């Protein structure tokens, strides 16, 4: 330990003890997104002239420096809060960093500043994004080594990091939305990175369209929240723009004095006195409102009940809660806060289903595997697709107000988890298996969020980022080694040729399957355990059903994961003798990130404490029921499901490793699963077909008839005709011009004479 001190004593003080430079780090939060942005600019502007080495180095530096700074900021913030009652948990003291750099949009009552906010949630997300992102950048240098658009690739990748960090760090919904659209754009660009291939370009387009559907809901949700609360900021602003002298100001809540309550004369008087008083800061943010609503409704049972919107007057006597969103009375004249908030949350969740590929908007994600494999690892597994989960968690305080909303989230999550897991059982493309697995795991995350323990969802996001990135990168390594072969039926027996890839992927598979004491086990087990606890606590029978679905999905997960392992690494090689000889292990620039991620996949869960600390650290929200973690029944069932699935897969695919036709069964279920339950074909037939028909009709009506015929030819022709007439008047003869003057004079004089 003294040795460590001796080593660190050479470091500058602002690295050794970042906590002492709290204000400094708060003001330099912008550096985190800035580094990748600079990398994007360099790579984007000089993509023609920059050399390969320099391009990769710049990109990795952009990402790595962002990671470095994110860690420093995180550690600077990690300490006891100086301001009491900032909403932070006493168990995990954390001083949120908040800096407002500029007034951004000011339109009427709508004010939105450009500010960054790093609290526990965005801090953890930032660490994951920059950390995993850096590893994937390094890996990409090897994987994309032969691509001709090397600089363009890294420019996009850096731009993605920038947008994702903006999404996570933004201190208001608008900035979040900007980042949200930014990552969508980068996703589109990177899916269609090899745009010469029409199918890949189409996949990019598909992702874009599906996301737009969700974005509409997201925008409506933002509008609704603004309509109710009159702000889009998460937290109240620091005292001064450009500085962070104080962290986000919190509500001051005065708890009732027990003695005064007991000494009250009448029952009504006692009820009045027993309610807490909430005082909001000067410019309250959404969190302030959520907290105030919670505090005010805490004594009234689990649900927040029906708070009338003209709560102002009522609240005036007890605190200064101000729900004076300008539009509130117009939009929800007879509604309640509960209703409005629930509506907003449902709309926001529509956005989340788009971005996080939940039912019914999941279909773009499997197709998104058209992009380069590191992109799949970074964007379509570890970071971007979890933006929906992040957003739900960020606004968890509002989601938690309505059990119905939570139930909707839970049902969608669980159905997605089981559906995608079933689809994944029979896929033959190695990346497709992982893609469906990602969809399934995202379903788990939403299921976790639906229990009201939002931190659990983020915990799973973190562990999932480790092992899914590992699996994708491993798959990429396999594809790289097999020279762009993705079909698992043509693989097999790779464990001797690619030992590092095999062992790291094995660890990742264990984590994904939920083998006890791996990272995935901790997070998934806790999610399922909390669902069980919720079911037990009497939140309706649906939770029992969701728990059951979760267990089955866990079984399927374990099965398809080890089917993948079996088909890829065991048995004999089915690639053909010519190709078999060229199979090789990937270079260290690719395997080292694999090994690092493998370590995290193995111990990630343990490293964050016993698996219980991170969720609580991330989200101070607690479910209102007894979660009773470590439930014996749950422990037994999840372990059984995982081991059962693994065992079955091993039985089928490793024992029969010699089989040349790996898929003998052609039953009904197999076909269903292989064809993804015909959902996409259904989409094609109904939604797309209807759209085609509608657009055809509109094309005829609007384009051909209205615009082409009436406006362009009709109006344009009319203009041309009039212009022709006027040109004939312009004869060039002075007398005619004078006659024009006389006519004009006559008109003016006649009108003036008439009055």
């Amino acid at each position, binding site marked *: 330990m003294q040795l460590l001190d001796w080593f660190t004593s050479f470091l500058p003080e602002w690295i050794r003890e970042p906590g002492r430079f709290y204000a400094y780090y708060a003001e330099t939060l912008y550096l985190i997104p800035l580094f990748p942005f600079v990398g994007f600019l360099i790579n984007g502007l000089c993509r023609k002239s920059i050399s390969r080495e320099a391009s990769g180095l710049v990109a990795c530096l952009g990402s790595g420096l962002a990671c470095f700074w994110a860690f420093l900021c995180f550690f600077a913030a990690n300490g006891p809060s100086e301001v009491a009652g900032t909403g932070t948990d006493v168990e995990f003291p954390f001083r949120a960093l908040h800096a407002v750099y500029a007034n951004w949009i000011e339109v009427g009552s709508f004010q939105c500043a450009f500010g960054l906010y790093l609290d526990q949630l965005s801090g953890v997300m930032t660490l994951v994004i920059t950390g995993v992102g850096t590893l994937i950048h390094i890996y990409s240098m090897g994987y994309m080594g032969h691509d001709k658009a090397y600089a363009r690739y890294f420019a996009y990748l850096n731009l993605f990091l920038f947008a994702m960090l903006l999404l996570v760090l933004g201190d208001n919904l608008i900035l979040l939305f900007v980042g949200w659209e930014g990552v969508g754009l980068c996703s589109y660009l990177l899916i269609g990175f090899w745009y010469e291939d029409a199918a890949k370009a189409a996949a990019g387009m598909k992702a874009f369209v599906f996301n737009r559907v969700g974005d509409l809901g997201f925008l409506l949700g933002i509008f609704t929240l603004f309509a109710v609360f009159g702000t889009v900021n998460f937290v109240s602003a620091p005292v001064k723009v450009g500085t962070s002298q104080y962290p986000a100001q919190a509500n001051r809540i005065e708890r009732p004095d027990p003695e005064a309550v007991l000494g009250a004369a009448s029952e009504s008087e006692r009820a009045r006195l027993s309610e807490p008083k909430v005082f909001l800061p000067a410019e309250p943010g959404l969190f302030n409102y959520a907290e105030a609503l919670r505090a005010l409704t805490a004594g009234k049972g689990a649900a927040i009940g029906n708070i009338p919107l003209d709560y102002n007057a009522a609240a005036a006597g007890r605190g200064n809660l101000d729900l004076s969103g300008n539009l509130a009375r117009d939009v929800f004249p007879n509604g309640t806060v509960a209703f409005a908030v629930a509506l907003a949350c449902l709309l926001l969740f529509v956005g989340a289903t788009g971005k996080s590929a939940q039912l019914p908007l999941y279909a773009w994600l499997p197709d998104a595997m058209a992009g380069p494999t590191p992109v799949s690892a970074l964007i379509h597994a570890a970071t971007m697709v979890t933006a929906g989960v992040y957003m739900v968690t960020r606004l968890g305080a509002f989601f938690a107000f309505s059990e119905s909303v939570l139930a909707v989230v839970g049902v969608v999550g669980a159905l997605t988890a089981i559906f995608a897991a079933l689809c994944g059982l029979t896929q033959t493309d190695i990346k497709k298996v992982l893609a469906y697995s990602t969809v399934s795991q995202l379903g788990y995350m939403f299921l976790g969020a639906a229990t009201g323990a939002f931190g659990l969802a983020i915990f799973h996001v973190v562990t999932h980022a480790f092992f899914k990135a590992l699996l994708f990168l491993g798959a990429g390594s396999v594809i790289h080694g097999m020279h762009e072969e993705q079909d698992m039926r043509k693989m097999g027996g790779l464990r001797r040729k690619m030992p590092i890839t095999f062992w790291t992927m094995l660890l990742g598979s264990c984590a994904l399957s939920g083998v006890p004491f791996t990272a995935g086990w901790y997070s998934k087990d806790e999610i399922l355990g909390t669902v069980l606890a919720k079911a037990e606590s009497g939140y309706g029978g649906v939770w029992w059903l969701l728990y059951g679905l979760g267990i089955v999905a866990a079984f399927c997960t374990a099965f398809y994961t080890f089917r993948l392992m079996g088909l890829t690494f065991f048995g004999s090689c089915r690639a053909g003798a010519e190709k078999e000889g060229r199979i090789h292990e990937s270079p260290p620039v690719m395997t080292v990130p694999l090994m690092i991620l493998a370590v995290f996949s193995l111990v990630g869960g343990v490293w964050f404490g016993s698996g219980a600390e991170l969720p609580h650290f991330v989200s101070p929200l607690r479910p209102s029921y007894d979660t009773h973690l470590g439930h014996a029944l749950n422990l037994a069932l999840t372990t059984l499901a995982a081991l059962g699935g693994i065992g079955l897969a091993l039985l089928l695919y490793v024992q029969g490793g010699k089989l040349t036709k790996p898929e003998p069964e052609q039953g009904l279920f197999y076909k269903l699963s292989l064809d993804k339950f015909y959902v996409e074909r259904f989409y094609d037939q109904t939604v797309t077909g209807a759209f085609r028909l509608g657009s055809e009709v509109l094309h005829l009506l609007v384009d051909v008839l209205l615009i082409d015929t009436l406006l362009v030819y009709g109006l344009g022709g009319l203009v*041309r005709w009039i*212009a022709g007439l006027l040109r004939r008047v312009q004869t060039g003869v002075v007398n005619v*011009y004078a006659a024009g*003057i006389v006519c004009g004079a006559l*008109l*003016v*004089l006649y*009108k003036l*004479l008439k009055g």
Partner: protein
Amino acid sequence: MNWNELYELLPVGVVLGTALVVVFLDLALPKKERYVLSMVAMGGCLLALGALAETYLSIAAYYKSTPPWFAAAGSAPSGGFNPFILGGAFVIDGFGLAVSVVALLAGALSILSSAHEDLDSNLTSGEFYGLILLGVSGMMLLGLSHEFLTLLVSLEIMSISTYILAGARRDTPGAEAALKYLVLGAFSTAFLMMGIAFFYGATGGFSLAPASLKVLEQIPSSGYLLRGALGLLLVGALFKVGAAPFHFWIPDVYQGAPSGVTGLMATGVKAAAFAVLGRLAFETFGLTYSYDWCWVFAAAAVLTMAVGNFLALKQDNVKRMLAYSGIAHTGYLLLAFLVSRNTTEAEAAEQLQNAAFYLLAYGVITLGAFGVVGLVREDGRRLETFDDFAGLAKEHPALALCMACFMFSLAGLPPFAGFFAKFLVFRSAIDAGYVLPAVLGILTSVASLYYYLRVVRAMYLDPVRPAALGQEPVPARCRYAWTSNLVIYGAGLVTLVLGMLPQWLTGLVW
């Protein structure tokens, strides 16, 4: 009459003095040294600009809170300063000074862009520069006139100088342009004079001050005379600004005149004529006049926008297209002069400010655009059609870029000055309650994009124009002259700066 007040007209005096100096200097200079004349004339303009600034600052000191934008009755300044100088012949207020600035800039820039012409031609002679300066002095006096006699004489000084300037090159198109301009100008001036006669009959005086109309309380019937006066005056003033249906002269005259003079006519003359219109609309027949006549402006504005834009669509000649676009811009500018009966003095002052901004922005853009058109020539032959501009961007990228800037700005695209100017004008029309003309203005200004972009397309997308006979592409066709380039680059820069930082000007002046 206090003759010390003549000091306020010092800028005009500087211009006149320079004119005389230039004319006599020409006699003393050998032909080779003629470039000195343009420098002297330019120097005089700059000196006059300085004197203008001095005048502005000296009167601004009297207006502590509100700048002296609109010296109508009732808003006379405090502090003992009387803006109506020389017995009410002239008024020194912000609007008049702004118009003077536009006129001076126009004069200076047209002198600069004519400075590279042949030494043998009239366009570099001392008389030519002298006439430009005399015309500019007429414009300045017209902007400051507050009485019909001085107004008429100033108008004639300006008009006759420009008639001569239009024909100064003494070629056929120039003489034709000058002839048409003179005949129609004299014809419309007759209407204007008849209007003044009626005004005199109604009020017994020539003062533009609204107090003149108080006579109506004692001679009620002369209200009809006054209406006749209004109609005839409007005919004369609308002719000078080139509003439809009095616009016929504009395309022919603009096309035939030398490019520098065309720039002067399109900016300085127009600004001065709009000064007359502004004084009539906001002072004499403005806020206190009981009869609501503003529909004349509204109707003329709509008609002008339509005619200008429609006819510009069908032009093949860039200069003629710019002339028609000038007509269209007159229509937009008329929107700023729409007063309703509810208009307060503060609103009127703001409208005049908007109009002044428009005039300045449009003036700079137009001078630049005509400067570019004036440069494109070949073997002394002027090239003015769209085809002649084909591929200009490859040969002269900087000039083409500036021209594209001017075109976008004229079309009213952000972030150029034209956008902000149009925005101000449309807003003031909507504020005055004339929504339909403003909407039509926006629509026509969208349509105008078509013909402005034709120039840009020709310069950037069309292949280099093949020679008339052979297949060889024509080499450089711009006559390079650093004076013209100075004007063009400067105008391009100002266009961009005014578009991005309009408050740079608005904050400086009002």
